C-alpha cells in the first residue's frame, strides 16, 4: 500500500504521476486523452504505467484525479435540462442578473442566456427576511403544486434558490426534501447547501450551474468508480476541486460545480510542491500554454483564494484558487489594430491550424512564429523532432504584420515577444501589486509549453530576481494532485459587530461550523491525526460592501477571539490592500469561514539520492544564432543545452537555450542558471 497516483485529464493529454510513499520513487506517464470517454485513457494509462514501472496495482493506496468533465459540459452546453424553483416575484432573477451588458460600448454583445429557460423557472410563495426571519412559509398546497410542475416539465435536475436562504434555510430545505421524495431520481441542488453566502444572483447562478452539471458528472464518476474498483480496489479516490483540495467521489457527485476550475488549480498545487521542496515559500506561478496564460500567487506555501469569478460568462461564487487568465499563449495571433498599434492576442490560432511554423496550414503570425524567427525554437522541431519547424512559413507570417508598420521581420518578432510579455506582466500585476503584494519578493515559477520561452523576460520586467522552471513542467498538474490534501470549505453569512473584549457572539457560529466539519471528517473517514482546520473572517467597515478576508491562524473553534486583536488585523489588511484605514470606524464581520483539511501525510524521512559524481561544466549540444536585441541587429551565436543531461549543481551563464521534449527555456545575456538538487532550473535574472 505505498503508491499515490495523480491523474490529470487535459484536452490533449492525460498525464500520470506516481510516487512511492516509502522510498520516494516516482513514475511519470502520458497518454492521449479520450474526450468521448475520459475514463478510457485513464484505464489505459494506469495499466501502462504500472507495467512499465513494475507497480503492483494493489499497491496503489491513493488515486487523485483532476477532471475537466464539468468544464467541458458547460462550454459545450451538454449539461442537463434544469428547472428552477424560486421565491415568488423573482423568476427572472437569473436572466436580469446584475442588469448590465458585458461591454458598455457594444450594441451587439450580450451575456450568455441562462442555463434554465424561463419556462422552467417556477415561483413558490415564500419569503425569508434579512435577519433569517421567516416572513412566509410555503403552503403545503404550494409545495405540491410546485412538485407537479417540476415533474411535468420532465427535467433531470432542479435548483432550489430562495432569497435569504443563506440566513435561514428551512424553506429551501422543505421544498428540496419534498422534491427528492416526490420525484425519485431527480437531482436537486439547493443554494443554501451549495454555498450559503449573501448576494442572490451569484448564489443562484452557482447553484444552477451545479444542477446543470450534476447528471453528467454523476454518470462519469459512476463509470470511473466501477472501472477503478476493478483495477485498484484498495485505492482511496480523490477528486480535485477548484479550491486546490480533494474531495471524495460521493461529495464530488453532489457538488460538481466545485471542480469547474480544478485544472489550473492543480498546476498551482504542483508549483507549491516543487517550490517547497526547493524552499521557496513565496511564488508567482505562470502557466503559459497554447492559447492562454494562467497566473497565480502563493504566499507562505499557500495559494491565494478568491470567491468570485466568472466561468464561461456565468458567475461562480465558491472558494477557488485565485488564478488570472490572459489570452497570451504560443498560438496567440499578432495583428494590427485600426490605430496602427501592434497587438498580440487574445485570439489564438489554437492547435489546428496552429502557428504557421508548425506547417499545418496556419498562415497567421503567432507568438510561436516570432520565437521561431528569433531562433528560440529548435529548428529540428519539438517532441524530439515529431513537430518540425518551418522557418520560411514563420517569416512569411510575421511579414504580414511587419510590412504595414515598416519594421523588419526580426524587429517585429522581437516586438511580438515584448508585447506578449507585457500582457503577462499586466496579468501578474493583477494578482500581486493590485492585491498589495510586491512581485519583487516572489519567485516566478514557470511551466506549460511556452512558459520557459518568456518567463525570464516577464521576471525581468517585474523586478523578480529568481525564475524557476521545474524539472517536469509538462506534468506539474498531475504532480500537484499527488500532494493535495482533502479539503472542505464551510461558510456562514452573518453580521456581527466587532466590539472590544472577546467576541462571544462568534462562538455559536463557530460551534455550528465545527459540528458540520466534524460530520465531514466522519463522512470522509479522515483519521483524527490528519484532521486540521483554519478559521477566517470576512470583515469590512460598517457601510462598505467589499469584505477583506482575515485569516486567524492561531484561533480555535472553542475560544472567542478578542475584538481588539481582530480590529488590528483588519486594519493592517485594509492598509495593505488599499493604502489607508480609518481606525475610528466601526468594523463588522460578514462571513465566518471554516476550512477543514484531511492532511496528506508527508514522509519527511524520504531522502533524495545525492550525486557524488564530480561535476563537469555542461556542454552545449550545438550552437545556433538567437536574436535578443534589435540594437545589435545580428543574432548572437548561442549555446543550446539538452535538459536531460543537466546535472544537479551544474551552472551556466546566458545567453543560452535549454531544450527538452515539450518545452524550451531561454536565458538572456547575463542570466545565470543553476540546476538545483531536484533538477529544477533556477535562473538568476540579470
Amino acid at each position, binding site marked *: 500500500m505505498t503508491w499515490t497516483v495523480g491523474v490529470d485529464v487535459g484536452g490533449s493529454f492525460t498525464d500520470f504521476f506516481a510516487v512511492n510513499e516509502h522510498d520516494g520513487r516516482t513514475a511519470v506517464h502520458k497518454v492521449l486523452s479520450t474526450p468521448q470517454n475520459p475514463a478510457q485513457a485513464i484505464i489505459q494509462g494506469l495499466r501502462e504505467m504500472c507495467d512499465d514501472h513494475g507497480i503492483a496495482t494493489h499497491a496503489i493506496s491513493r488515486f487523485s484525479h483532476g477532471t475537466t468533465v464539468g468544464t467541458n459540459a458547460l462550454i459545450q452546453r451538454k449539461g442537463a435540462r434544469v428547472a428552477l424553483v424560486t421565491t415568488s416575484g423573482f423568476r427572472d432573477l437569473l*436572466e*436580469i442578473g446584475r442588469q448590465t*451588458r458585458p461591454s458598455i460600448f457594444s450594441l451587439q454583445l450580450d451575456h450568455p442566456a441562462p442555463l434554465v429557460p424561463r419556462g422552467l423557472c417556477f415561483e413558490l410563495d415564500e419569503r425569508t*427576511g434579512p435577519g433569517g426571519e421567516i416572513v412566509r412559509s410555503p403552503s403545503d398546497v404550494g409545495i405540491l403544486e410546485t412538485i407537479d410542475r417540476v415533474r411535468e416539465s420532465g427535467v433531470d435536475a432542479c435548483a432550489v434558490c430562495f*432569497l435569504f436562504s443563506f440566513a435561514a434555510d428551512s424553506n429551501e430545505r422543505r421544498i428540496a426534501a419534498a422534491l427528492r421524495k416526490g420525484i425519485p431520481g431527480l437531482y436537486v441542488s439547493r443554494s443554501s447547501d451549495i454555498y450559503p453566502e449573501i*448576494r*442572490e444572483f451569484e448564489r443562484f447562478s452557482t447553484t444552477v450551474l451545479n444542477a446543470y452539471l450534476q447528471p453528467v458528472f454523476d454518470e462519469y464518476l459512476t463509470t470511473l468508480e466501477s472501472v477503478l474498483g476493478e483495477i485498484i480496489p484498495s485505492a482511496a479516490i480523490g477528486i480535485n476541486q477548484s479550491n486546490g483540495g480533494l474531495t471524495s467521489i460521493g461529495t464530488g457527485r453532489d457538488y460538481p460545480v466545485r471542480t469547474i476550475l480544478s485544472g489550473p488549480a492543480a498546476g498551482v498545487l504542483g508549483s507549491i510542491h516543487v517550490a517547497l521542496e526547493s524552499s521557496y515559500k513565496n511564488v508567482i506561478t505562470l502557466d503559459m500554454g497554447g492559447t492562454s496564460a494562467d497566473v497565480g500567487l502563493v504566499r507562505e506555501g499557500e495559494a491565494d483564494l478568491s470567491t468570485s469569478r466568472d466561468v464561461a460568462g456565468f458567475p461562480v461564487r465558491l472558494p477557488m484558487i485565485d488564478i488570472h487568465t490572459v489570452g497570451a499563449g504560443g498560438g496567440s495571433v499578432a495583428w494590427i489594430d485600426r490605430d496602427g498599434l501592434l497587438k498580440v492576442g487574445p485570439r489564438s490560432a489554437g492547435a489546428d491550424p496552429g502557428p504557421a511554423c508548425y506547417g499545418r496550414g496556419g498562415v497567421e503570425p503567432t507568438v510561436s512564429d516570432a520565437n521561431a524567427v528569433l531562433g528560440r525554437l529548435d529548428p529540428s522541431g519539438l517532441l524530439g523532432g515529431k513537430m518540425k519547424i518551418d522557418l520560411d512559413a514563420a517569416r512569411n507570417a510575421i511579414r504580414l504584420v511587419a510590412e504595414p508598420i515598416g519594421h523588419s521581420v526580426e524587429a517585429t518578432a522581437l516586438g511580438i515577444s515584448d508585447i506578449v510579455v507585457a500582457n503577462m506582466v499586466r496579468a501578474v500585476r493583477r494578482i500581486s501589486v493590485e492585491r498589495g503584494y510586491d512581485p519583487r519578493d516572489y519567485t516566478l515559477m514557470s511551466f506549460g509549453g511556452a512558459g520557459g520561452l518568456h518567463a525570464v523576460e516577464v521576471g525581468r520586467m517585474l523586478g523578480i530576481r529568481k525564475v524557476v522552471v521545474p524539472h517536469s513542467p509538462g506534468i506539474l498538474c498531475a504532480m500537484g494532485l499527488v500532494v493535495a490534501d482533502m479539503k472542505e470549505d464551510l461558510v456562514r453569512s452573518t453580521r456581527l459587530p466587532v466590539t472590544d473584549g472577546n467576541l462571544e457572539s462568534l462562538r455559536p457560529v463557530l460551534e455550528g461550523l465545527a459540528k458540520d466539519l466534524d460530520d465531514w471528517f466522519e463522512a470522509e473517514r479522515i483519521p483524527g491525526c490528519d484532521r486540521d482546520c483554519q478559521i477566517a473572517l470576512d470583515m469590512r467597515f460598517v457601510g*462598505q460592501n467589499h469584505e477583506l478576508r482575515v485569516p486567524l491562524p492561531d484561533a480555535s473553534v472553542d475560544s472567542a477571539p478578542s475584538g481588539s486583536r481582530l480590529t488590528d488585523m483588519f486594519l493592517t489588511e485594509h492598509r495593505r490592500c488599499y493604502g489607508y484605514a*480609518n481606525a475610528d470606524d466601526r468594523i463588522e464581520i460578514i462571513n465566518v469561514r471554516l476550512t477543514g483539511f484531511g492532511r496528506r501525510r508527508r514522509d519527511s524521512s524520504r531522502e533524495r539520492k545525492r550525486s557524488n559524481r564530480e561535476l563537469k561544466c555542461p556542454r552545449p549540444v550545438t550552437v545556433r544564432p538567437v536574436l535578443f536585441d534589435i540594437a545589435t541587429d545580428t543574432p548572437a551565436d548561442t549555446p543550446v543545452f539538452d535538459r536531460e543531461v543537466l546535472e544537479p549543481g551544474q551552472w551556466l551563464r546566458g545567453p543560452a537555450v535549454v531544450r527538452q521534449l515539450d518545452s524550451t527555456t531561454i536565458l538572456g545575456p547575463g542570466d545565470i542558471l543553476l540546476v538545483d538538487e531536484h533538477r529544477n532550473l533556477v535562473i538568476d535574472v540579470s
Partner: protein
Amino acid sequence: MSDLTIDPISLEIMLNALRSVADETYNALTRSAYSTNIKERRDHSTAVMDANGRLVAQAENSLPVHLSSMAGLMRALLDKYPGAEIREGDIFVSNDPHVAGGSHLPDINLAMPVFVNGRCLAFVCNIAHHADVGGMVPGSIAGGMTEIYQEGLRIPAVKLFDQGQLVRDIFDILLLNVRVPDERKGDYNAQIAACRLGERRMQEFAGRHGPETLETAFGEIIRRTEDRLRRAVSEIPDGTYSFEDMMDDDGCENYDIVIRITVRVRGGRISFDFAGTAPQTAGNINAPINASHATLCYVLKALVDPDVPNNEGVLNVCEMIAEPGTLVNCVAPAPCAARANTCQRIVDVVIGALKDALPEAAVAASNGANTAAVYSGARPDSGETYVYLETIGGGFGGRAAKDGTDGVQVHSTNTSNLPIEVMETEYPLRVSRYELVQDSGGAGEHRGGLAIRRDVEPIGHVCNFSGQGERFRHAPWGLFGGSSGKTGRFALILGSGRETRLSGKPMSVEVPPGVTISAQTAGGGGYGDPEKRSADRCQEDFDSGKFSPEFMKRHYGFR
C-alpha cells in the same frame, strides 16, 4: 514636447501600462468605497490626463458620461490655477456643472497632479457618484427642483489637499452639507487613496520610460485614436441626417420637450447640430454641454468603432453645435441632476438620425431613460437617516441581427443593480418583485427587449420616495417596421391591491408600511417587419411566457 517618435510596438506597451494604472485605481476605488453607488453599482470612473488636461487613458469600465466631465474639470482647474500654483501632493475636488466642468452635482470629481523631477507630467482623476450631496431632497436627484442651488452643494475646482496636507476647512464644508457625512467621508477617503495610488504608479511608470518619452506617447496615443475614429467616420455615407424625439416632461409640468439633431457627415468629419432643440427648462433634466458631448462620443463609438480607445482623440472628432441656454447646453442656474435621462434620449435621437446611413449598426429605441428611484427615511431601529438610490434597467432596442436584450441597462449607463439581499440588509426596505414585464418589448423581425418591474415596500417606517422616470409618455419607437415598446410608470399599490399612478417624476412621496412603490421601465422598440419574425422565435416568445397569447396573435398572427 520633444521630437521623439515612438514606434507602434513601444506605444502599445506604454498604452497597456497606462490602462493598467487606470484599471488598478478603478478596482481599488470599487473595493474600498462606502456608497452602494460606487461599490455595487460601479457608478465611478478613473483616468489619466496629460499635463495639459487632455484625456489619455480611461479605465475599461469607466462610464461614458464621465469621459468629458473629467476633461471639463481639468479645463476649469487649469484655467483657475496657473502652473506654479499646482504643486506635488495637491488634490483638487469639484462637482459643479456650470463652473467646474461637471455634469451633475452627485458626481464628485478628484484630480491629482503627478510630479516627476519637479515637473508636472500628468494628472490622475477619478469621479464617483455619491449617494447624497445635500440639497432639497435626499439623494439629491428628484423632480420639481428649478435651480441648481436646490440640488445640493456646489463645489468649484478647489484644493482638498495642499502639498499633501488636507485642507480641513474645505473638507468640513463638504461634509457638513451632506446627509450621511460618515458614509461620504468613507467615499472621499477611497477616492483620495485611488488618486495617491495612481500618482505612485505613474511615477514608477515614468521611472521606467522617462517623462519625455511619456509626454510624446500621450500625444501619439491621442493622435492615433483621432485618426482611427475619423477613418471609421469616413465610412459613413456623406450626407445630412436629421431626427427628433421628445422628453416626457421635466418634473415641473412642462411636457413634450423636443430634442432635435442634424448630423452632417463629410469626408471623415462629423458634426452634431442641435438646432431646433428646446430651450433649457425649469426642471432638472437639463444637460450641461459636457454631458451632451460625452453622450455623442458614446453613440458615435458604439455605432462605428466600439473598440476605439477612450481618450481626447474621441472628443476631438465629435463636433457639437448647440446654443447655450438649450436643453442640451444649459447654463446657470439650470438644475441638471437628472441629465442622464436626457443623455439617453440624445442617444436614441442620434441613432434615429443615422438609421438609414448605418442600418446594420442602428438599433431601435431603447428604454431611453435612467430610471432612478430614491428611498429615504429614518431607520426604525436606530432612527438614523438613510438614503438609497437605485437605477432600473429596461428593454434594449431590437437589432439588425437579433432581438433587443431583456431587462438591462442601456446605452450610456451600465451600472449594476444592488443585490436584493444586500439592499434589505442595509436598508429597512423589502423588494416584493423584480421581474420582466410581459408584452413590453415592441414586435418586430427582431423584437425589443422587455422592461423591468421592481416593487419595493418600506418596513416599519414611513419612507420618502422620489423618482425620475422617462419614456412613461413617449414610447421607444421601432425601426424599419418594428413596433414601439411599452411605456413605463411609477405607482403605489395599496394593501387592497388598488394601484394609484404617480407622476413620471414624483418628489418626496410619503409611503407608509403596507404600501408598495412599483417602478416599471419601458421596453425596447422592435426592428424590422414583425411578419418576418421566424416561427421558432415566435414559439420561444410564447413558451417563455414573455408575451401573452393575445399579443402574439395581434402582432404576429401566432396562435
